Protein backbone atom coordinates (compact mmCIF):
# COMPACT_ATOMS: atom_id res chain seq x y z
CA UNK A 1 0.00 0.00 0.00
CA UNK A 2 1.27 3.49 -0.88
CA UNK A 3 0.74 6.50 1.39
CA UNK A 4 -1.17 8.30 -1.36
CA UNK A 5 -4.53 9.99 -0.92
CA UNK A 6 -7.12 9.47 -3.64
CA UNK A 7 -10.23 11.59 -4.23
CA UNK A 8 -13.12 10.09 -6.17
CA UNK A 9 -14.54 13.08 -8.04
CA UNK A 10 -18.27 13.38 -8.61
CA UNK A 11 -19.44 15.53 -11.50
CA UNK A 12 -22.67 17.31 -12.22
CA UNK A 13 -23.47 18.87 -15.60
CA UNK A 14 -19.97 17.74 -16.69
CA UNK A 15 -18.26 19.81 -13.97
CA UNK A 16 -16.69 18.61 -10.71
CA UNK A 17 -19.13 19.11 -7.84
CA UNK A 18 -18.22 21.68 -5.24
CA UNK A 19 -18.14 18.87 -2.65
CA UNK A 20 -15.43 17.15 -4.72
CA UNK A 21 -13.37 20.35 -4.93
CA UNK A 22 -13.59 20.51 -1.14
CA UNK A 23 -12.19 16.97 -0.93
CA UNK A 24 -9.42 17.81 -3.39
CA UNK A 25 -8.51 20.79 -1.21
CA UNK A 26 -8.28 18.80 2.03
CA UNK A 27 -6.76 15.88 0.12
CA UNK A 28 -3.92 18.10 -1.05
CA UNK A 29 -3.22 19.04 2.55
CA UNK A 30 -3.32 15.40 3.64
CA UNK A 31 -0.97 14.24 0.89
CA UNK A 32 1.53 16.92 1.78
CA UNK A 33 1.39 15.85 5.44
CA UNK A 34 1.88 12.21 4.48
CA UNK A 35 4.64 13.25 2.03
CA UNK A 36 2.73 11.47 -0.70
CA UNK A 37 0.80 12.23 -3.85
CA UNK A 38 -2.79 13.37 -4.18
CA UNK A 39 -4.51 11.25 -6.79
CA UNK A 40 -7.92 12.01 -8.24
CA UNK A 41 -10.24 9.82 -10.28
CA UNK A 42 -12.50 11.40 -12.87
CA UNK A 43 -14.50 8.70 -14.59
CA UNK A 44 -17.51 9.03 -16.82
CA UNK A 45 -18.33 10.12 -20.31
CA UNK A 46 -17.34 13.48 -21.80
CA UNK A 47 -15.58 14.75 -18.68
CA UNK A 48 -12.34 15.99 -20.27
CA UNK A 49 -12.88 19.56 -19.07
CA UNK A 50 -13.73 18.35 -15.58
CA UNK A 51 -10.47 16.38 -15.52
CA UNK A 52 -8.60 19.55 -16.50
CA UNK A 53 -10.16 21.43 -13.58
CA UNK A 54 -9.33 18.60 -11.19
CA UNK A 55 -5.74 18.43 -12.44
CA UNK A 56 -5.15 21.86 -10.91
CA UNK A 57 -5.60 20.29 -7.49
CA UNK A 58 -4.25 16.75 -7.82
CA UNK A 59 -0.72 15.58 -8.48
CA UNK A 60 -2.06 12.88 -10.74
CA UNK A 61 -5.54 12.83 -12.23
CA UNK A 62 -6.64 9.42 -13.40
CA UNK A 63 -9.10 9.98 -16.22
CA UNK A 64 -11.42 7.28 -17.53
CA UNK A 65 -13.61 8.17 -20.47
CA UNK A 66 -16.13 5.56 -21.48
CA UNK A 67 -19.66 5.97 -22.86
CA UNK A 68 -20.92 3.12 -20.66
CA UNK A 69 -20.15 5.28 -17.62
CA UNK A 70 -22.50 8.07 -18.72
CA UNK A 71 -25.10 6.83 -16.23
CA UNK A 72 -23.91 6.01 -12.73
CA UNK A 73 -24.25 2.42 -11.57
CA UNK A 74 -22.50 0.76 -8.61
CA UNK A 75 -21.69 -2.15 -10.89
CA UNK A 76 -20.17 -0.23 -13.81
CA UNK A 77 -18.58 2.69 -11.96
CA UNK A 78 -17.65 0.34 -9.12
CA UNK A 79 -15.73 -2.02 -11.40
CA UNK A 80 -13.69 0.90 -12.73
CA UNK A 81 -12.98 2.27 -9.27
CA UNK A 82 -12.04 -1.16 -7.96
CA UNK A 83 -9.51 -1.59 -10.78
CA UNK A 84 -7.98 1.81 -10.13
CA UNK A 85 -7.76 1.26 -6.38
CA UNK A 86 -6.06 -2.09 -6.91
CA UNK A 87 -3.60 -0.60 -9.37
CA UNK A 88 -2.69 2.64 -7.55
CA UNK A 89 -3.24 1.22 -4.04
CA UNK A 90 -3.75 4.47 -2.07
CA UNK A 91 -3.86 4.50 1.72
CA UNK A 92 -6.86 6.82 1.95
CA UNK A 93 -9.80 7.23 -0.41
CA UNK A 94 -12.00 10.30 -0.03
CA UNK A 95 -15.52 10.50 -1.39
CA UNK A 96 -18.73 12.45 -0.97
CA UNK A 97 -21.49 11.30 1.34
CA UNK A 98 -24.04 11.80 -1.43
CA UNK A 99 -26.75 9.50 -2.77
CA UNK A 100 -24.11 8.11 -5.16
CA UNK A 101 -21.38 7.91 -2.52
CA UNK A 102 -23.63 6.05 -0.11
CA UNK A 103 -24.52 3.59 -2.86
CA UNK A 104 -21.00 2.97 -4.15
CA UNK A 105 -18.39 3.13 -1.40
CA UNK A 106 -19.72 0.52 1.07
CA UNK A 107 -19.72 -2.06 -1.72
CA UNK A 108 -16.15 -1.22 -2.67
CA UNK A 109 -15.09 -1.25 1.00
CA UNK A 110 -16.55 -4.75 1.38
CA UNK A 111 -14.84 -5.88 -1.81
CA UNK A 112 -11.43 -4.56 -0.72
CA UNK A 113 -11.86 -5.15 3.04
CA UNK A 114 -11.19 -1.46 3.61
CA UNK A 115 -12.01 0.51 6.75
CA UNK A 116 -15.17 2.47 5.97
CA UNK A 117 -16.15 5.70 7.71
CA UNK A 118 -19.22 7.39 6.26
CA UNK A 119 -20.86 10.76 6.61
CA UNK A 120 -17.94 12.48 8.33
CA UNK A 121 -17.71 16.26 8.69
CA UNK A 122 -14.08 16.98 9.45
CA UNK A 123 -10.57 15.69 9.88
CA UNK A 124 -7.73 16.39 12.30
CA UNK A 125 -4.27 15.98 10.82
CA UNK A 126 -2.27 17.47 13.68
CA UNK A 127 -1.25 14.19 15.35
CA UNK A 128 -0.09 10.82 14.09
CA UNK A 129 -2.19 9.60 11.18
CA UNK A 130 -5.65 11.10 10.94
CA UNK A 131 -8.63 11.56 13.18
CA UNK A 132 -12.01 11.65 11.53
CA UNK A 133 -14.87 13.67 12.95
CA UNK A 134 -18.29 12.11 12.63
CA UNK A 135 -21.53 13.29 14.26
CA UNK A 136 -23.79 10.70 15.87
CA UNK A 137 -27.41 10.83 17.10
CA UNK A 138 -28.29 13.73 14.83
CA UNK A 139 -25.38 15.82 16.04
CA UNK A 140 -25.96 15.33 19.78
CA UNK A 141 -22.55 13.67 19.98
CA UNK A 142 -19.37 14.14 17.98
CA UNK A 143 -17.22 11.04 17.64
CA UNK A 144 -13.57 10.93 16.63
CA UNK A 145 -12.55 7.81 14.76
CA UNK A 146 -9.36 6.44 13.30
CA UNK A 147 -8.96 3.68 10.73
CA UNK A 148 -6.43 1.01 11.70
CA UNK A 149 -3.01 2.10 10.52
CA UNK A 150 -2.31 -0.93 8.35
CA UNK A 151 -5.64 -0.78 6.57
CA UNK A 152 -6.82 1.04 3.50
CA UNK A 153 -9.49 3.57 4.51
CA UNK A 154 -12.47 4.90 2.58
CA UNK A 155 -13.93 8.04 4.13
CA UNK A 156 -16.97 9.93 2.89
CA UNK A 157 -17.71 13.49 3.92
CA UNK A 158 -20.87 15.57 3.90
CA UNK A 159 -20.84 18.45 1.43
CA UNK A 160 -19.75 21.77 2.98
CA UNK A 161 -17.30 20.03 5.36
CA UNK A 162 -14.24 21.88 3.99
CA UNK A 163 -13.52 25.12 2.17
CA UNK A 164 -12.48 25.01 -1.45
CA UNK A 165 -8.86 26.11 -1.86
CA UNK A 166 -7.51 27.97 -4.86
CA UNK A 167 -6.50 25.93 -7.86
CA UNK A 168 -2.77 25.28 -8.10
CA UNK A 169 -0.36 24.24 -10.79
CA UNK A 170 -1.66 21.70 -13.23
CA UNK A 171 -0.68 18.14 -12.43
CA UNK A 172 -0.41 15.14 -14.67
CA UNK A 173 -3.48 13.60 -16.35
CA UNK A 174 -3.24 9.86 -16.88
CA UNK A 175 -5.78 8.37 -19.23
CA UNK A 176 -6.69 4.85 -18.21
CA UNK A 177 -8.55 2.51 -20.51
CA UNK A 178 -10.28 0.41 -17.86
CA UNK A 179 -12.76 -2.25 -18.86
CA UNK A 180 -16.29 -1.50 -17.61
CA UNK A 181 -18.06 -4.47 -16.05
CA UNK A 182 -21.84 -4.26 -15.70
CA UNK A 183 -23.86 -6.62 -13.55
CA UNK A 184 -26.19 -8.65 -15.80
CA UNK A 185 -28.82 -8.69 -13.02
CA UNK A 186 -29.25 -4.89 -13.24
CA UNK A 187 -30.88 -3.00 -16.11
CA UNK A 188 -31.71 0.72 -16.05
CA UNK A 189 -35.09 1.27 -17.69
CA UNK A 190 -35.30 5.06 -17.37
CA UNK A 191 -33.85 7.98 -15.46
CA UNK A 192 -35.35 11.33 -14.71
CA UNK A 193 -33.29 14.24 -13.44
CA UNK A 194 -35.43 16.95 -11.98
CA UNK A 195 -33.20 19.55 -10.44
CA UNK A 196 -30.52 19.73 -13.12
CA UNK A 197 -29.13 23.27 -13.30
CA UNK A 198 -29.97 23.97 -9.68
CA UNK A 199 -27.51 23.47 -6.87
CA UNK A 200 -28.27 20.42 -4.71
CA UNK A 201 -29.83 21.10 -1.34
CA UNK A 202 -26.91 19.49 0.48
CA UNK A 203 -24.32 21.45 -1.47
CA UNK A 204 -26.06 24.83 -1.30
CA UNK A 205 -24.27 27.69 0.50
CA UNK A 206 -27.60 29.39 1.14
CA UNK A 207 -30.79 27.70 2.28
CA UNK A 208 -34.08 29.32 3.13
CA UNK A 209 -36.41 26.87 4.78
CA UNK A 210 -40.16 27.10 5.36
CA UNK A 211 -42.22 25.55 8.13
CA UNK A 212 -45.88 25.03 8.84
CA UNK A 213 -46.33 28.76 9.46
CA UNK A 214 -45.91 29.35 5.72
CA UNK A 215 -49.58 28.29 5.65
CA UNK A 216 -49.86 27.16 2.01
CA UNK A 217 -47.88 25.69 -0.86
CA UNK A 218 -48.13 28.87 -2.94
CA UNK A 219 -46.46 30.93 -0.22
CA UNK A 220 -43.23 29.02 -0.86
CA UNK A 221 -42.89 31.06 -4.08
CA UNK A 222 -41.54 33.87 -1.88
CA UNK A 223 -38.86 31.56 -0.51
CA UNK A 224 -38.02 30.26 -3.99
CA UNK A 225 -37.52 33.82 -5.23
CA UNK A 226 -35.08 34.54 -2.42
CA UNK A 227 -33.29 31.20 -2.93
CA UNK A 228 -32.91 31.89 -6.66
CA UNK A 229 -31.67 35.39 -5.96
CA UNK A 230 -28.98 33.98 -3.65
CA UNK A 231 -28.12 31.00 -5.87
CA UNK A 232 -29.30 28.70 -3.10
CA UNK A 233 -32.15 26.34 -2.43
CA UNK A 234 -35.47 26.24 -0.62
CA UNK A 235 -35.89 23.62 2.09
CA UNK A 236 -38.91 22.52 4.09
CA UNK A 237 -39.74 20.98 7.43
CA UNK A 238 -41.43 17.60 7.83
CA UNK A 239 -44.93 18.99 8.42
CA UNK A 240 -44.65 20.85 5.12
CA UNK A 241 -43.74 17.63 3.30
CA UNK A 242 -46.53 15.72 5.07
CA UNK A 243 -48.97 18.44 3.95
CA UNK A 244 -47.68 17.89 0.39
CA UNK A 245 -46.78 21.57 -0.05
CA UNK A 246 -43.30 20.55 -1.15
CA UNK A 247 -41.63 17.35 -2.36
CA UNK A 248 -39.73 15.01 -0.06
CA UNK A 249 -36.54 15.94 -1.89
CA UNK A 250 -36.69 19.33 -0.11
CA UNK A 251 -37.07 17.94 3.42
CA UNK A 252 -34.43 18.97 5.93
CA UNK A 253 -34.24 16.96 9.14
CA UNK A 254 -33.60 13.58 10.63
CA UNK A 255 -35.85 11.74 8.19
CA UNK A 256 -34.87 13.97 5.28
CA UNK A 257 -31.56 15.60 4.39
CA UNK A 258 -28.77 16.85 6.61
CA UNK A 259 -27.47 20.20 5.43
CA UNK A 260 -24.76 22.59 6.56
CA UNK A 261 -24.86 25.72 4.41
CA UNK A 262 -23.00 28.93 5.15
CA UNK A 263 -26.31 30.65 5.83
CA UNK A 264 -29.55 28.97 6.81
CA UNK A 265 -32.75 31.01 7.27
CA UNK A 266 -35.66 29.24 8.94
CA UNK A 267 -39.03 30.86 8.22
CA UNK A 268 -42.12 30.21 10.31
CA UNK A 269 -40.87 26.91 11.61
CA UNK A 270 -40.93 26.01 15.26
CA UNK A 271 -37.66 24.08 15.34
CA UNK A 272 -38.68 20.54 16.28
CA UNK A 273 -35.69 18.45 17.35
CA UNK A 274 -35.77 16.24 14.26
CA UNK A 275 -35.50 19.34 12.10
CA UNK A 276 -32.70 20.87 14.15
CA UNK A 277 -30.76 17.62 13.74
CA UNK A 278 -30.76 18.19 10.00
CA UNK A 279 -29.41 21.75 10.01
CA UNK A 280 -27.58 22.32 13.28
CA UNK A 281 -24.18 22.23 11.58
CA UNK A 282 -24.98 25.26 9.38
CA UNK A 283 -22.41 28.02 9.84
CA UNK A 284 -24.92 30.81 10.55
CA UNK A 285 -28.55 30.21 11.46
CA UNK A 286 -31.26 32.86 11.21
CA UNK A 287 -34.77 32.29 12.55
CA UNK A 288 -37.85 34.26 11.58
CA UNK A 289 -40.90 33.52 13.69
CA UNK A 290 -43.64 35.59 15.25
CA UNK A 291 -43.54 33.46 18.41
CA UNK A 292 -40.58 34.60 20.55
CA UNK A 293 -40.75 31.29 22.45
CA UNK A 294 -40.33 29.08 19.37
CA UNK A 295 -37.55 26.53 20.10
CA UNK A 296 -35.77 27.48 16.85
CA UNK A 297 -34.46 30.63 18.57
CA UNK A 298 -32.45 28.43 20.95
CA UNK A 299 -30.42 27.20 18.01
CA UNK A 300 -30.18 30.40 15.98
CA UNK A 301 -27.44 33.04 15.78
CA UNK A 302 -29.83 35.81 14.71
CA UNK A 303 -33.55 36.11 15.10
CA UNK A 304 -36.42 38.25 13.90
CA UNK A 305 -39.59 38.08 15.94
CA UNK A 306 -42.28 39.18 13.52
CA UNK A 307 -44.80 38.00 10.97
CA UNK A 308 -42.94 36.11 8.27
CA UNK A 309 -45.19 37.53 5.55
CA UNK A 310 -44.18 41.07 6.52
CA UNK A 311 -40.50 40.15 6.81
CA UNK A 312 -39.96 38.21 3.58
CA UNK A 313 -40.64 41.03 1.06
CA UNK A 314 -38.26 43.30 2.99
CA UNK A 315 -35.68 40.51 3.20
CA UNK A 316 -35.84 39.98 -0.53
CA UNK A 317 -35.31 43.69 -1.20
CA UNK A 318 -32.37 43.96 1.19
CA UNK A 319 -30.68 40.82 -0.11
CA UNK A 320 -31.16 42.06 -3.64
CA UNK A 321 -29.39 45.30 -2.72
CA UNK A 322 -26.39 43.45 -1.30
CA UNK A 323 -26.26 41.28 -4.42
CA UNK A 324 -26.24 44.37 -6.62
CA UNK A 325 -23.49 46.01 -4.55
CA UNK A 326 -21.11 43.10 -5.00
Amino acid at each position, binding site marked *: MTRDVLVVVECKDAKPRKASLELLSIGREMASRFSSTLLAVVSGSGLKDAADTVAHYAGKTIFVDNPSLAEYGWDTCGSVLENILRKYDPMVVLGTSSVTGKDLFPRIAARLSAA*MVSDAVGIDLTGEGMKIKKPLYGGKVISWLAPKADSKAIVTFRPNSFTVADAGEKGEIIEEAVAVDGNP*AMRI*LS*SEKKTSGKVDLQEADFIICGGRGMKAAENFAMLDEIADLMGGRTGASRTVIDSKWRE*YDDQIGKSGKTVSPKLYIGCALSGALHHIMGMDTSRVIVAINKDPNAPIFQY*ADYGIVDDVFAVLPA*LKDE*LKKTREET
Partner: protein
Amino acid sequence: MKVLVFMKQVADTEARIIISSDQKSLEVENKYVVNFFDEFAVEEAIRIKEMLKDVEITVCAFAPQRAVEALRTTIAMGADRAFLINSTDREADDPLIVSRVLAGFARKEGFDIVLCGRQAMDDESANVGPMVAEFLGIPHVSQVTKLTITGGGKAEVESEIEGGKRTSEVSLPALFTCQKGLNEPRVPLITGVMRAMKTQIDVLDPASIEMPFGPIDREASKITVLSYEAPAGRPSVRIMEGASPEEKVQNLVRALKDEAKVL
Protein backbone atom coordinates in the same frame (compact mmCIF):
# COMPACT_ATOMS: atom_id res chain seq x y z
CA MET B 1 -40.75 -16.72 -1.50
CA LYS B 2 -38.49 -15.74 1.37
CA VAL B 3 -38.16 -12.12 2.36
CA LEU B 4 -35.51 -11.13 4.88
CA VAL B 5 -35.60 -7.82 6.69
CA PHE B 6 -32.61 -6.39 8.57
CA MET B 7 -33.67 -4.17 11.41
CA LYS B 8 -31.72 -1.88 13.71
CA GLN B 9 -33.03 -0.69 17.04
CA VAL B 10 -31.94 2.91 17.52
CA ALA B 11 -32.17 5.55 20.23
CA ASP B 12 -35.29 7.65 19.99
CA THR B 13 -34.74 11.23 18.76
CA GLU B 14 -35.69 12.51 22.19
CA ALA B 15 -33.41 10.12 24.12
CA ARG B 16 -30.72 11.74 26.22
CA ILE B 17 -27.17 10.73 25.40
CA ILE B 18 -24.57 11.11 28.13
CA ILE B 19 -20.87 11.13 27.31
CA SER B 20 -18.76 9.42 29.99
CA SER B 21 -16.23 11.61 31.80
CA ASP B 22 -13.29 9.85 30.15
CA GLN B 23 -15.00 10.52 26.77
CA LYS B 24 -14.63 6.85 25.85
CA SER B 25 -18.21 5.67 26.04
CA LEU B 26 -21.82 6.78 25.69
CA GLU B 27 -24.76 6.14 27.91
CA VAL B 28 -28.04 6.20 26.02
CA GLU B 29 -31.29 6.81 27.84
CA ASN B 30 -33.45 3.70 27.66
CA LYS B 31 -35.75 4.94 24.89
CA TYR B 32 -35.34 2.80 21.82
CA VAL B 33 -37.38 2.41 18.66
CA VAL B 34 -37.31 0.54 15.36
CA ASN B 35 -35.11 2.58 13.01
CA PHE B 36 -37.38 4.94 11.04
CA PHE B 37 -36.29 3.68 7.60
CA ASP B 38 -36.45 0.02 8.66
CA GLU B 39 -40.19 0.44 9.27
CA PHE B 40 -40.58 0.97 5.52
CA ALA B 41 -38.66 -2.28 4.97
CA VAL B 42 -40.94 -4.25 7.31
CA GLU B 43 -44.06 -2.70 5.77
CA GLU B 44 -42.88 -3.48 2.24
CA ALA B 45 -42.23 -7.10 3.20
CA ILE B 46 -45.80 -7.34 4.51
CA ARG B 47 -47.17 -5.80 1.32
CA ILE B 48 -45.23 -8.31 -0.78
CA LYS B 49 -46.77 -11.07 1.31
CA GLU B 50 -50.28 -9.65 0.93
CA MET B 51 -49.73 -9.52 -2.83
CA LEU B 52 -48.05 -12.87 -3.45
CA LYS B 53 -49.49 -14.85 -0.50
CA ASP B 54 -46.87 -17.61 -0.29
CA VAL B 55 -44.24 -15.48 1.41
CA GLU B 56 -42.33 -15.92 4.65
CA ILE B 57 -41.02 -12.78 6.34
CA THR B 58 -38.01 -13.13 8.63
CA VAL B 59 -36.64 -10.16 10.53
CA CYS B 60 -33.13 -10.17 11.94
CA ALA B 61 -31.08 -7.80 14.07
CA PHE B 62 -27.44 -7.93 15.14
CA ALA B 63 -27.88 -6.21 18.46
CA PRO B 64 -27.78 -6.53 22.23
CA GLN B 65 -30.63 -8.31 24.05
CA ARG B 66 -32.70 -5.11 24.41
CA ALA B 67 -33.51 -5.18 20.67
CA VAL B 68 -35.89 -8.11 21.23
CA GLU B 69 -38.49 -5.47 21.97
CA ALA B 70 -38.06 -3.83 18.57
CA LEU B 71 -38.17 -7.27 16.90
CA ARG B 72 -41.50 -7.87 18.65
CA THR B 73 -42.80 -4.66 17.12
CA THR B 74 -42.03 -6.04 13.66
CA ILE B 75 -43.90 -9.26 14.49
CA ALA B 76 -46.82 -7.16 15.69
CA MET B 77 -46.80 -5.38 12.34
CA GLY B 78 -46.98 -8.69 10.49
CA ALA B 79 -43.57 -10.33 10.18
CA ASP B 80 -43.59 -14.13 10.61
CA ARG B 81 -40.34 -14.79 12.46
CA ALA B 82 -37.65 -12.75 14.17
CA PHE B 83 -34.10 -13.52 15.26
CA LEU B 84 -31.67 -11.63 17.40
CA ILE B 85 -28.00 -12.27 16.76
CA ASN B 86 -26.49 -11.27 20.06
CA SER B 87 -23.88 -8.53 19.63
CA THR B 88 -22.94 -8.32 23.31
CA ASP B 89 -19.15 -8.23 23.63
CA ARG B 90 -18.90 -7.95 19.89
CA GLU B 91 -17.62 -5.13 17.76
CA ALA B 92 -20.39 -3.00 16.24
CA ASP B 93 -18.42 0.12 15.29
CA ASP B 94 -17.06 -1.46 12.13
CA PRO B 95 -19.82 -1.84 9.51
CA LEU B 96 -17.87 -4.60 7.77
CA ILE B 97 -18.26 -6.83 10.82
CA VAL B 98 -21.99 -6.10 11.18
CA SER B 99 -22.44 -6.82 7.48
CA ARG B 100 -20.49 -10.09 7.61
CA VAL B 101 -22.70 -11.29 10.45
CA LEU B 102 -25.95 -10.35 8.69
CA ALA B 103 -24.74 -11.79 5.39
CA GLY B 104 -23.88 -15.02 7.24
CA PHE B 105 -27.40 -15.19 8.63
CA ALA B 106 -28.91 -14.52 5.20
CA ARG B 107 -26.79 -17.26 3.65
CA LYS B 108 -27.93 -19.73 6.31
CA GLU B 109 -31.64 -18.79 6.04
CA GLY B 110 -31.85 -18.45 2.28
CA PHE B 111 -33.76 -15.58 0.68
CA ASP B 112 -35.22 -14.14 -2.49
CA ILE B 113 -35.39 -10.54 -1.33
CA VAL B 114 -33.48 -8.72 1.41
CA LEU B 115 -34.90 -5.42 2.64
CA CYS B 116 -33.45 -2.84 5.04
CA GLY B 117 -33.73 0.87 5.72
CA ARG B 118 -31.65 3.27 3.65
CA GLN B 119 -29.67 4.24 6.73
CA ALA B 120 -29.80 4.13 10.51
CA MET B 121 -30.95 7.24 12.34
CA ASP B 122 -28.15 7.05 14.91
CA ASP B 123 -25.03 6.99 12.75
CA GLU B 124 -26.51 7.86 9.32
CA SER B 125 -23.82 5.74 7.74
CA ALA B 126 -25.87 3.81 5.16
CA ASN B 127 -23.19 1.12 4.91
CA VAL B 128 -24.75 -2.18 5.86
CA GLY B 129 -27.19 -2.62 2.95
CA PRO B 130 -24.71 -2.37 0.06
CA MET B 131 -22.03 -4.22 2.10
CA VAL B 132 -24.29 -7.21 2.76
CA ALA B 133 -25.25 -7.30 -0.93
CA GLU B 134 -21.56 -7.33 -1.85
CA PHE B 135 -20.79 -10.19 0.54
CA LEU B 136 -23.75 -12.18 -0.74
CA GLY B 137 -22.79 -11.46 -4.35
CA ILE B 138 -26.24 -10.11 -5.21
CA PRO B 139 -27.31 -6.81 -6.80
CA HIS B 140 -28.74 -4.00 -4.69
CA VAL B 141 -30.71 -0.82 -5.22
CA SER B 142 -30.49 2.01 -2.67
CA GLN B 143 -33.19 4.42 -1.62
CA VAL B 144 -36.07 2.51 -3.18
CA THR B 145 -39.36 4.41 -3.42
CA LYS B 146 -41.37 1.82 -5.38
CA LEU B 147 -40.96 -1.93 -5.60
CA THR B 148 -42.96 -4.24 -7.87
CA ILE B 149 -42.32 -7.97 -8.10
CA THR B 150 -42.95 -8.53 -11.78
CA GLY B 151 -42.71 -12.32 -12.00
CA GLY B 152 -40.08 -14.39 -13.77
CA GLY B 153 -37.80 -13.79 -10.82
CA LYS B 154 -37.56 -10.07 -11.48
CA ALA B 155 -38.48 -6.81 -9.78
CA GLU B 156 -39.10 -3.35 -11.17
CA VAL B 157 -37.69 -0.75 -8.84
CA GLU B 158 -37.98 3.00 -8.61
CA SER B 159 -35.21 4.64 -6.62
CA GLU B 160 -33.68 7.99 -5.85
CA ILE B 161 -30.48 8.91 -7.59
CA GLU B 162 -28.44 12.13 -7.46
CA GLY B 163 -30.96 14.86 -8.27
CA GLY B 164 -33.66 12.60 -9.65
CA LYS B 165 -35.28 9.21 -9.95
CA ARG B 166 -34.48 6.01 -11.78
CA THR B 167 -36.43 2.93 -12.74
CA SER B 168 -34.50 -0.31 -13.02
CA GLU B 169 -35.20 -3.96 -13.58
CA VAL B 170 -33.39 -6.25 -11.18
CA SER B 171 -33.13 -10.03 -11.20
CA LEU B 172 -33.78 -11.64 -7.82
CA PRO B 173 -32.30 -12.43 -5.39
CA ALA B 174 -31.51 -8.82 -4.62
CA LEU B 175 -31.23 -6.38 -1.74
CA PHE B 176 -33.18 -3.14 -1.54
CA THR B 177 -32.68 -0.26 0.90
CA CYS B 178 -35.93 1.51 1.66
CA GLN B 179 -36.55 5.25 1.45
CA LYS B 180 -39.40 7.33 2.82
CA GLY B 181 -42.20 7.43 0.24
CA LEU B 182 -42.04 3.67 -0.44
CA ASN B 183 -45.14 3.07 1.70
CA GLU B 184 -46.91 4.11 4.88
CA PRO B 185 -45.84 1.76 7.69
CA ARG B 186 -48.87 0.36 9.51
CA VAL B 187 -49.51 0.71 13.20
CA PRO B 188 -49.76 -2.78 14.72
CA LEU B 189 -53.28 -3.98 15.52
CA ILE B 190 -54.05 -5.38 18.95
CA THR B 191 -54.25 -8.91 17.48
CA GLY B 192 -50.76 -8.43 16.09
CA VAL B 193 -49.48 -7.25 19.45
CA MET B 194 -51.02 -10.33 21.12
CA ARG B 195 -49.34 -12.60 18.60
CA ALA B 196 -46.02 -10.80 19.07
CA MET B 197 -46.20 -11.35 22.83
CA LYS B 198 -46.53 -15.09 22.27
CA THR B 199 -43.93 -15.41 19.52
CA GLN B 200 -40.65 -16.97 20.50
CA ILE B 201 -37.74 -14.79 19.41
CA ASP B 202 -34.60 -16.87 19.12
CA VAL B 203 -31.34 -15.38 20.29
CA LEU B 204 -28.40 -16.66 18.28
CA ASP B 205 -24.72 -16.61 19.10
CA PRO B 206 -22.82 -15.29 16.06
CA ALA B 207 -20.28 -18.07 16.63
CA SER B 208 -23.01 -20.62 15.87
CA ILE B 209 -23.51 -19.32 12.34
CA GLU B 210 -21.05 -20.15 9.61
CA MET B 211 -19.65 -16.88 8.29
CA PRO B 212 -17.45 -17.25 5.26
CA PHE B 213 -17.21 -13.52 4.50
CA GLY B 214 -14.27 -12.59 6.68
CA PRO B 215 -13.42 -12.22 10.37
CA ILE B 216 -16.03 -11.00 12.85
CA ASP B 217 -13.98 -10.93 16.04
CA ARG B 218 -13.21 -7.68 17.80
CA GLU B 219 -9.57 -7.67 16.72
CA ALA B 220 -10.72 -7.66 13.11
CA SER B 221 -12.30 -4.22 13.49
CA LYS B 222 -10.70 -1.69 11.19
CA ILE B 223 -12.14 1.28 13.05
CA THR B 224 -11.00 2.63 16.41
CA VAL B 225 -13.25 5.02 18.31
CA LEU B 226 -10.86 7.54 19.85
CA SER B 227 -13.27 9.69 21.82
CA TYR B 228 -16.71 11.26 22.08
CA GLU B 229 -17.44 14.90 22.76
CA ALA B 230 -20.37 17.28 22.92
CA PRO B 231 -20.85 19.48 19.87
CA ALA B 232 -19.69 23.07 20.15
CA GLY B 233 -22.64 25.15 21.30
CA ARG B 234 -23.77 28.37 19.69
CA PRO B 235 -23.82 31.69 21.55
CA SER B 236 -27.37 32.70 22.43
CA VAL B 237 -29.49 34.24 19.73
CA ARG B 238 -29.42 37.95 18.92
CA ILE B 239 -32.92 39.19 18.30
CA MET B 240 -32.94 42.05 15.81
CA GLU B 241 -34.26 45.35 17.08
CA GLY B 242 -36.44 47.60 14.95
CA ALA B 243 -39.72 49.48 14.87
CA SER B 244 -40.86 47.75 11.70
CA PRO B 245 -40.19 44.48 9.89
CA GLU B 246 -38.19 46.50 7.34
CA GLU B 247 -35.92 47.93 10.01
CA LYS B 248 -35.34 44.53 11.61
CA VAL B 249 -34.42 43.10 8.23
CA GLN B 250 -32.00 45.96 7.56
CA ASN B 251 -30.28 45.27 10.87
CA LEU B 252 -30.18 41.56 10.13
CA VAL B 253 -28.66 41.94 6.67
CA ARG B 254 -26.09 44.39 8.05
CA ALA B 255 -25.11 41.88 10.76
CA LEU B 256 -24.90 39.02 8.27
CA LYS B 257 -22.67 41.14 6.05
CA ASP B 258 -20.40 42.87 8.56
CA GLU B 259 -20.28 40.51 11.53
CA ALA B 260 -21.01 37.02 10.30
CA LYS B 261 -19.56 37.74 6.85
CA VAL B 262 -21.82 35.29 5.10
CA LEU B 263 -23.23 37.70 2.50
